[in-house]
Every structure is written in C-alpha cells, then in structure tokens.
C-alpha cells in the first residue's frame, strides 16, 4: 500500500515495530492505519476536524477529537514511544509549548513541516514580493491555517533553545525525492522537513 503523503513513508521507516504512538493532527487516520496494519503499531490520533473524525472511525483508527492548542494534559508522562506531529506544527498557536508537551508524554518526537526556506518560497517572497503559494503551501495568506511557518534553520535553533536533541533530519521534495542538491542544501531545496528528536540527556 502506498501512502498519499511524501512524509508518511519516512515517518514509517523511523518508527519501530509494535511501538506506542500518538499522532497529533492525524487527519483521516491514513498514517496510523498503515502503521497499525504493517508494523503492529498501536495508539491514538488526535484530530479536530469533524470529517476527519468520521473517516478515522471508518478506518478503524482510535481518534480523539480535541484542539491541540489545549495541550496534552490528559496524557501522562512517557505514555508513548513516539509522538508524531506531521504538517501541523506550523498551524499550531504555540509550537514551542507543543514540542515541550510532546517530549513530556513520549520518549521521542517526530515533526514534519513545510520548509518556508525552500527556494520557491524565497523567490515568490524575495523577488515576487508576495506570500508564497506552492505545492506544499497551497492556500492564500488569508485562508491558510498556517500561522507559524518556519525554515529548517529556525526549527533547529528552537530545538537548541528547548534542549532538544535532533536524532535524524530529512529534507525531501514534494514527491519524496532526495537528490544530491537536497543533501547539500536542505534548507534551500527541501520542500518538506522531517525531524526525529528527543530530550537532551
């Protein structure tokens, strides 16, 4: 079964079999459903959108309807092996608090987000003088849910500040290709940034 989003394959590779996973902003449950079928993973998705809730239930995914900005206080410390936040960090009101919460409830965190430092965005903003609209940022500035866009550099700086140790980093293009350009200049050519991290010990 192929996954519909380029970041899902990388996330699946990072997650060990039979792990306990919390997927924040789990959408229609596609990732959790695949992880459970292929890797014996169990856990919960958190989602706010009504349509997605119905689809998760259809897919047999454990989904809890909640606003992520209200935090994860209902989950105890170290309840999970991984917490996933895929393409949602940039839409949360308090990304720094959310990252802290993720590492409170879980040993490791996985985050993916659209890289605002990608060359297309830079050209659209730097030369075109307009907010970028492209494959990873498809909506206009006025109707996008994204309120905290960042680049790879920005994210890594925040991790440093929050005492977060980055275990793995991947920058991929829209269709999950990672050529030599991407490896050399991830912040310039990466469309989607992926990180696996934990608390600094």
């Amino acid at each position, binding site marked *: 079964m192929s996954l519909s989003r380029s970041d899902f394959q990388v996330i699946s590779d990072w997650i060990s079999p039979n792990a306990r996973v919390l997927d924040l902003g789990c959408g229609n449950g596609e990732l959790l459903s695949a992880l459970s079928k292929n890797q014996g993973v169990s856990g*919960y998705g958190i989602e706010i959108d009504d349509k997605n809730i119905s689809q998760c*239930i*259809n897919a047999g995914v454990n989904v809890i*309807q909640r606003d992520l900005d209200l935090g994860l206080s*209902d989950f105890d410390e170290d309840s999970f092996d991984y917490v996933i936040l895929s393409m949602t960090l940039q839409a949360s009101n308090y990304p720094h608090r959310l990252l802290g919460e993720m590492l409170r409830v879980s040993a490791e965190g996985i985050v993916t987000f659209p890289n605002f430092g990608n060359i297309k965005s830079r050209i659209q903003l730097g030369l075109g003088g307009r907010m970028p609209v492209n494959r990873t940022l498809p909506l206009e500035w006025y109707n996008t849910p994204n309120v905290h866009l960042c680049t790879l550099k920005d994210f890594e700086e925040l991790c440093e500040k929050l005492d977060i140790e980055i275990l793995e980093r991947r920058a991929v293009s829209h269709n999950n290709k990672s050529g030599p350009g991407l490896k050399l200049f991830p912040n310039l050519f990466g469309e989607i940034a992926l990180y696996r991290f934990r608390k600094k010990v």
Partner: protein
Amino acid sequence: MPEKIPDGSIGLVKSSTFHFDQPLSLACGATLDEYELVYETYGELNTSRDNAILVCHALSGTHHLAGYYCMEDRKPGWWENIVGPGKVIDTNKFYVVGVNNLGGCHGSTGPTSRNPETDKPYGPDFPIVTVGDWVESQQRLSEKLGIEQWAAVIGGSLGGMQVLQWAIDFPDSLRHAIVIAAAPKLTAQNIAFNEVARQAIRTDPAFYDGHYYEHDTIPESGLRIARMLGHLTYMSDDIMAEKFGRALREDTINFDYGVEFQVESYLRHQADSFVGTFDANTYLLMTKALDYFDPAAATGSDLSAVMTNVSADFFVLSFTSDWRFSPQRSHEIVKALHDNDLNVSYAEIESHHGHDAFLLPLPQYLSVLGAYMERIATESSI
C-alpha cells in the same frame, strides 16, 4: 396517530417479559427474591449470536426504543431517530435489545408493582437500586436471551453510566462500549438539581410519604416541578433563546401569573405529558441511582485504576453545549481508558441543543455513530 408507519421505522413492535426467581442481592443490602424485566427486541439474532446490541435507557427512558405498539400510538419509541432498518443502529444487521430498568414504571418490577409480602404496591418500600444492580439484572437477561457477549452495549446519559458499569463488571460480556453524553460520576451541582427535584415530589401534600397509591392520588405538582427542572438542565441557554426567546403567547403582557412567555408554556406542556406516564417513586429512585453512581469509589476515585480489567473497545461522545454532563466529563472517561492503553475513540459533537442532543438526529452525530456501528459490523462480518 401514524396513518401509515413512516419509512425507515421498524414498524409495529411488542414488548415481552421475563420472570426471574433467582434472588437478586442489591447494593443497598436488600434482596429482591423475584422480579420481572420487560424488554423489547428488534431485528434477528444471527446464528453465531454475535450481533446483539443492548441499549440502556436514561432517567425517564424505557425499553421501547423504536417503532409503534399500534396504529393509534401518538409517538414512536424514544430512540426512533437512531434505531431501525437502515438507520445508524441498523436492525437489518443487529439484534437490538431495550430493557426497562428495575425500579421503573413501564413494566419491570418497581414501586408500582405488587409487593408479594404485602400484596400491595411496593411504593416507597421498593429498595433503592443502583447502576450496578441494573447491570447485574441486565446480565441475567442476557443469559435468558442466549447472548454470551454483546457486540456493543450503548447508552446516553444515565444509560452511558450503565455502559461504563458493564465494561467494568462484565469485561468479557461486551466487545464495544458506546458511552454518549455521560459522566463517570455526578458533580455537587448535578446532585443538587436532583435533590431539588426530589424535594418537590416529597413535600407535595399528595405524596403521603410515597404511599399515594393507597390514597388514589399522585403528587402531581411535585412531579411536574421535578420534570420542569429536569428539562431546564437538558437544554442550553442558546437553544432556549432560539426556541422561545422572550416570545409571548399573546401580544401583550397581562401582569398576572398565567402562562405568558412561550418558555412557560413549553415547560408546562412537558410537565403535562410526563405526569400521566411516569411514577413519582420511580423518579425518586432514578435520581438516587444517578447520585450514587461512582464506579471509581472503590479505588479512591481513581477511574483509571478501576478500569484495569476492562477489555471492550470504547466510543465516547459528548456535545459541546451539554452543561449537565459537559464534554469535560467525557474527557475524564477517555483519559481513564487511554491510561489503560484501551482502544478508544472520542467525538465532541458541535451542537447548541444541550444534553438533549443525544436524542436528536444531528448530522455529525449520525455520521460518527454510524461509522462506528459500521466498524462493529465489519469486524464481525455481520
């Protein structure tokens, strides 16, 4: 009332009664030596006996979930919106059972039934029953019906509390638990509302300490006030504003105590239709069962600890404007479940209908509940 049965209704239905002569020890210390439970079934039990659904009723509910008893019936069963052929709880797939709880006044043994020791109605001598007692009696009904394991036990409000109790007391007897607009225990405010309702009934001069049957009367005004108060807690401020606002029945105010505002008229109508159909002693018992419900009491109020043996998959639902059992109360249930790594899904339905929403055909409610029922059917190839 229906000239023809509406499309999608289960149609004409009949209730049945089981007599139990195995004594039932109650939480209060009393024993019911024998008792009857009235119940209704819809759809067919399949040969593998794995498509049975138990629906537990709320405070004023009954075993009559859906359909009509006769063509003269004014109203169908209380969950007609949800239960029926092709409906969310699809009687073409599932064998659905509704049961009137002990202490009720719709056919199961309760205060209006004959006490074999005195040959008179039990009245106030009917022992106080708890949610745990109900679940025990429902388990015995399952045995009589030949159901070893329910595909799901489902209930809203006080019915949802029975579902929780089922999952705790008989973990192997249900595969799914669907808890709608419920709470793991009442708050002080909830208990206070119940107490005001009870006081209204008990201080009615026609109550006669519960022996009103012998005086050939009923504590009508007390029961009316209790029902009106209950209805207030079932609605949100917003829905009352939308339904009634400050609208008057006539164009002018009369400076008297007659029915002037539409909301007054509504409450009186609710009271009217309740008084003829519901017994005051049963109302008292049901509110007590609510007050006493606290499955976590045994573990020092640690709901997670009391759920360690639970094995059912859960679906918990709440409604945003429900202030009687708010979404926060459902969060407590959900937390206890994921603390135990159990399968649980939770939907918080946007609605301005208050607690009453669980009885209404709201699109998102039907969508998620339908999706969950479909999942139950699919996993067991029903």
